[in-house]
């Protein structure tokens, strides 16, 4: 199993209640899971638990069979690459290529140049490889943060709202990136409300509400669980909604 959560509870220091309460699920490799829930439902807590940024109050988390207990984040980064929403929080290298090479250099991966070129090609950034990251548009900078995670060759990749602020051409590229990664056997966990964009890729939907797991199933089960999912703010693709309405 690429990711295993076994009855995990987590609480931030001096927080009134648990951010996550006995959550259990397992996600296999070469799969794509969509993590949904309103702000504060515990989505980012779950992601931070995966790479050891936060330590659980109770329960066990295993990434690629390796328990995260006691392992520093910089070591877990070889198993789980996490990409956050705001590119400005991580871009600092003088060129796009150096930026993508930052992760692999920290992990001391062999054959860094190949990984970097492969990641740049996958994300369509080869033509701008030697430009400064801030020469790129915001959408391209988001793809750059994805490329720098891909280059780390980690079995598990987590993305926080990867398609926020992207327009149609970039969304299509994001779709090819994710389907290629999935085909390569990676496990992808994506936080997003946009079911429509990722529907064809999604194997599992995990819905959180108030820190507890309210739905863990395949997308086809979505229509009967609509009331639960609607509470978590999932934005159904327009055409799905109309079709469901017509079929009722």
């Amino acid at each position, binding site marked *: 199993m690429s990711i295993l959560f076994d009855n995990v509870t987590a609480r931030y220091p001096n927080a009134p209640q648990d951010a996550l309460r006995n959550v259990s699920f397992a996600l296999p490799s070469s799969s794509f899971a969509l993590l949904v829930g309103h702000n504060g439902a515990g989505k980012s807590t779950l992601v*931070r638990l995966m*790479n050891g*940024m936060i330590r659980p109050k109770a329960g066990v988390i295993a990434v690629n069979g390796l328990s995260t207990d006691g392992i*520093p*984040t*910089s070591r877990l*980064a*070889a198993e789980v*690459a*996490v*990409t*956050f929403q*705001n590119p*400005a*929080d*991580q*871009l*600092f*290298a003088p060129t796009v290529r150096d930026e993508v090479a*930052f*992760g692999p250099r*920290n*992990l001391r991966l062999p054959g860094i140049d190949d990984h970097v070129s492969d990641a740049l090609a996958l994300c369509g950034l080869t033509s701008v490889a030697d430009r400064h990251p*801030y020469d790129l548009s915001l959408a391209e900078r988001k793809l750059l943060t994805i490329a*720098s*995670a891909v280059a*780390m060759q980690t079995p598990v990749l987590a993305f926080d709202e990867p398609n926020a602020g992207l327009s149609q051409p970039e969304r299509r590229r994001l779709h090819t990136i994710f389907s290629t990664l999935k085909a390569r056997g990676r496990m992808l966990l994506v936080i997003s409300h946009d079911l429509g964009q990722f529907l064809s890729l999604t194997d599992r939907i995990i819905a959180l509400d108030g820190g507890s797991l309210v739905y863990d199933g395949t997308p086809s089960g979505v229509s009967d669980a609509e009331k639960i999912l609607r509470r978590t703010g999932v934005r159904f693709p327009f055409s799905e909604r109309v079709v469901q309405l017509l079929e009722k």
Partner: protein
Amino acid sequence: MIATKLAFVLFCWTAAFALPTAVQVVFMHAAFVLGRFLPLFRPSSAQARRLYVRFLLYAGLLSAVVVILNALFVRNGEVLLDLGIVQFSREGVEFGLRVSVRLVLMSTAVLVFFLSTPLRDLAAFLDSSGAPAVLTSVLLLSLEFLERLPQRIEQIFTAQEARGAPVRAGFAGRFRSLFSILGPLIVSSIVESVERSHALALRGFPAPPEHRIRIRLPLTIPAWSLIAGVVAMVGWKLWESFR
């Protein structure tokens, strides 16, 4: 009101250099008393009061250390106390006392001013008394960014550590990751400054001079008397040095 407090700080700073130590001790206690009881000077928030108490401890400790250090290391002059291996000289003690009293008087005056004057009121005072728009806008924007940057730094740490930055490794690793943390902070500040200059210009900032109609605030009597005191002290000091 704020003008009076500014005049008070100026008065104390001049006294710290112009007047003999004994007189300075009197003003020092005056500054403490004002800070405690006069509503104008009372700390403006619980947090400010805590800072005031913490400062008093710091000032006391610092004065003691200064006096002892100088007493120890100033060799010449009459020896007040001889503990065999360590001697305390009179001149050292006097120098220590003079320095620490001046330090505490000047610091207390500054602290009493700031702890009783919220910075946004200070900015409003500067603005209404015709200070250049650059000064007040940079001060106000600094307060805004001071609130936002600590959280930004947290996010940058999280993002870079998630990419394997050795922030908790040995000294070499931590030193190397210093740039991977400060880099995004500085670059994003530069880029945001450019974006903000657009946003501010689109809402008419900086306003043309004719739009900055300002009324001059009349200085109150206490402010005038303090300034008169400053002039008197400077005059006395100059007269004394020429004699």
